[in-house]
């Protein structure tokens, strides 16, 4: 069993107005096979958390730790993290002109496994995975995400998730922009990956709808750069009804305190 452990994580980003603190002490533990949902208002830092775990150069970690089975994730480069078994399905997947999906997938698989996949079984695996995600076979020859619709990009992320077989996946709003059918198809892909490899999942979402397909073991409310409350699946239902108002009040109070400290 593996453990992804985040302790007191603090992250800043450089803006035109100067350094801005976004993550303010995140604590989170995800174990193999567990599904954690993270919900929170826009701008609370959910994507920042996802990117920080993956090692995006834009974000600077100013405090705290991330470990994978005790190994210091923060000391790893972006590609080392992926090879260690971390995966990020991005909120806005990037287009790579001139690089075909086929070439990209094979290159990534080779990098993750440390050896080229067997030609015969690999192309069959890719084809089958695409069929299951209802992706037309033409997407294999197209350049990575180039000209893909929002929903097609999300499917392409889950295709990679299924083929690369990580130990932990962060899914950043994978459900946003999906129509009802696509939501179901993509959710099934995530569940397949979960079952096949006992994947640990950190699922960032704004909507409880996806939680009907992907059943979380834990729900975390993310506000102002940290986890404000934790609970079971029922917490998601409550958030849907009540919104985040309750937490926002606490947040402005905290901001006020910050201002006082600075002053």
């Amino acid at each position, binding site marked *: 069993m593996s453990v992804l452990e985040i302790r007191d994580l603090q992250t800043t980003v450089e803006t035109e107005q100067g350094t801005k603190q976004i993550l303010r002490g995140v604590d989170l533990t995800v174990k193999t096979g567990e599904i954690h949902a993270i919900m929170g208002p826009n701008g609370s830092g959910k994507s920042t958390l996802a990117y920080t775990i*993956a*090692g*995006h*150069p*834009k974000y600077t970690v100013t405090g705290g730790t991330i470990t994978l089975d005790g190994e210091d994730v923060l000391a790893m*480069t*972006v*590609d080392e*993290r*992926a*090879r260690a078994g971390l*995966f*990020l399905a*991005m909120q*806005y*997947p*990037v*287009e*790579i*002109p*001139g*690089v075909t999906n086929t*070439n*990209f997938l094979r*290159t*990534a698989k080779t*990098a*993750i496994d440390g050896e080229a996949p067997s030609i015969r079984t690999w192309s069959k695996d890719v084809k089958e995975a695409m069929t299951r995600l209802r992706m037309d076979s033409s997407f294999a020859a197209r*350049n*990575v995400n180039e000209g893909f619709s929002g929903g097609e990009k999300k499917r392409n992320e889950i295709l*990679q998730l299924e083929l*690369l077989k990580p130990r932990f996946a962060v899914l950043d709003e994978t459900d946003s922009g999906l129509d009802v059918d696509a939501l179901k198809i993509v959710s099934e892909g995530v569940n397949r990956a979960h079952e096949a490899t006992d994947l640990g999942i950190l699922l960032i979402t704004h909507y409880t709808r996806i939680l009907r397909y992907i059943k979380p073991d834990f729900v975390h409310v993310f506000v102002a750069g940290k986890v404000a409350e934790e609970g079971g699946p029922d917490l998601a239902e409550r958030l849907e009804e009540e919104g985040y108002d309750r937490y926002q009040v606490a947040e402005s109070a905290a901001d006020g305190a910050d201002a006082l400290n600075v002053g």
Partner: protein
Amino acid sequence: MSTYIETEPSFVPVQTRSERPTSYDPADFDAPTGREVDWKFSDVARLSPLFEDADGDPQAIDYEIEPEAFVQAPLAPGQAPRGEAFHPEDLPSAIAWKRTAEALHLVIPAGLETQEPVRVSIRGLGAQLRGHAHLVIEAQERSRAIVVLEHTGSARFAENVEVLVRDHAALTLITVQEWEDDAIHASAHQAVIGTGASLKHVVVSLGGAVVRVNPSVRLAGEHSEAQLLGAYFADAGQHLESQVYVYHEGRNTKGRVLYKGALQGASAHTVWIGDVLIGRDAVGTDSYEQNRNLVLTDGARADSVPNLEIETGDIEGAGHASATGRFDDEQLFYLQSRGITEEEARRLVVRGFLLEIVQQIGVESLAERLAQAIEAELSGGAS
């Protein structure tokens, strides 16, 4: 997310391409100093051997043409159709005109359609040797063919390529510069395109110390079309240049220019000057030109100057774009987040960037070979 930092053209030529003086007599041109509009970004010092109006060395260049069936009797200066479309615009070109007693004349006969490319291998036999050439490539009416000029070896080479695309013909002309490190090459291509005819013109410059290939296309006939593509990869110390000119003269003509370049290493320098002229009678013109450069390391420099001149208001559309940028961090991050090392991610991105051009060449075997050559450039191997 944009890959590029859009930059404003740094300089607008005071003299437009249509006003450039032309002459068959080298004496009419002063030796370039680097202050002239058409030499401003050039490596005048290293090109200077090509400014000397002297005979070429007899053994400078080895030519091989395959299949030979398309080769006609050579053309003396002034012997038609030599000079029908070609008017030297600069000194090396006028010297090459004058010093080439026998111009190679390739003719694709009327109505003939060939899939197999006509290969002209041009091999320089020594870096100190001076060579001149004038080639006349004539695609007769309703013919369809591909001609590939392959430059290898080393020489000091001034070359003219005169291209006549007759009515309703379709010609693809590809010039590949895979010179050795010490070659000096100035080449002027001038093409005239007839009614309903089309030219696909591709410049791929990878090797050579200084390579300057200036294609100029006159869309003379109604409904004529030209697609001008370029891909170049400059390493440390290399200077690769293209001054592209499209003149929309006839009605309802279409021009597309796309040049992409990658630069890597100290003092790698590329120059792209793209001029488009939409003439007085060129109603219905549809024109677009763009240049994109990817600067991979510090100390490399890409000059990019688009210029659009419009003499009639009644056109379909015209535009230009120029962008020079560094690696897109988001692309690198995305690839790395899938386990791909930074080095390999960079290779994939640059390869993809240039392959957009190579994929459009339309000659499978050549495209494959060039993709490999680009790969070799990227791993810092052969240049």
